[in-house]
């Protein structure tokens, strides 16, 4: 009987963790594939207004972003506190918007160049003067499809 009593009784067999890396790798690949790295860091305050009648912006490759807002704390010394336009990674003047749109459009594949949308991510504190100037620039380069990006919510919250 000695043969059978060799094993100590009451000792739980260790759970094999050999497949744990596989599971984690699976998750890892999932997140690696769905990740879109932020291509530009925000240098302006960007609290968007609320709206309820919104449409989703599908297909990110067809969108050109324009940010508008007051420069964040670290840039305020240099650029002041008036709302500024941010294109990609730098501040820009209104008259640079047109050439920026043309440059971005040229980067896109041919078949997408006519279906591009310009997403205006504008801080709710900005004034319409700047937006009107941007809109005029967009009209000049024939980028007529715009999307005022907003959060989903009750539009009357904006007024408070």
């Amino acid at each position: 009987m000695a043969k059978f009593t060799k094993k100590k009784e009451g000792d739980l067999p260790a759970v094999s963790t050999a497949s744990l890396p596989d599971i984690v790798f699976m998750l890892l690949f999932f997140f690696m594939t769905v990740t879109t790295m932020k291509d530009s860091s925000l240098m302006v305050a960007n609290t968007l207004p609320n709206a309820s009648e919104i449409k989703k912006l599908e297909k990110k490759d067809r969108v050109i972003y324009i940010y508008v807002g007051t420069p964040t704390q670290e840039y305020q010394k240099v650029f002041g506190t008036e709302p500024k336009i941010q294109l990609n990674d730098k501040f820009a003047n209104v008259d640079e918007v047109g050439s920026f749109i043309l440059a971005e459009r040229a980067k896109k594949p041919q078949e997408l160049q006519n279906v591009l949308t310009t997403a205006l991510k504008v801080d709710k504190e900005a004034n319409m003067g700047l937006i009107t100037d941007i809109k005029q620039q967009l009209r000049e380069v024939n980028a007529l499809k715009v999307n005022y990006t907003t959060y989903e919510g009750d539009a009357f919250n904006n007024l408070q």
Partner: protein
Amino acid sequence: MPRRKGAPEVNAGSMADIAFLLLIFFLVTTTIETDAGLDRMLPPIEPPDQDVVIKQKNIFTVSINRNGQLLVEDNLMEIEDLREAATAFLENGADGSCTYCKGKKDPSSSDNPTKAIISLKNDRETKYSTYITVQNELVGAYNDLRNREAQRLFGSDFTTMESKYLDPETPSNVRDELKDKVKRVQDMFPQKLSEAETTTD
């Protein structure tokens, strides 16, 4: 000293730790967000060849001043009432050609929805948030009317049909079917929202 048999096994226990580290990095940097907002078309820069004569009664003027106050058809108005006023204007149907309109048929207001134009003006110092609220209410007025007609004709909201139609994951046979419905409702109340150049004074 006992002889070793073959190469020693490498301990793979820390593999999970390394993978977790990477996983957490990607978790943190991931932004699975789809932006949403109000879609608008800007007017083309070339003016039309000949001037189109539009009757004054077919234009619904909305002006926002720098303090965020509204002037609608020369009367002061609260933003809360704008949607209702715009809806009443759009479906007024003074000439009687619009069979689905439920408006008052007021002869001093719009002839029919295809002729009705909403004109939005704003000051340079108007706050963007106010502007978006007004835009939202005007688009909302169109959506309310379209929803009503879509409910009557197809038993489903226009906005849900449209978002389903625009969703790339909808199968194409469903999309083709929706396309006609969406188009039909859109033509009943075409969105004519003009944004004139801003007044500077």
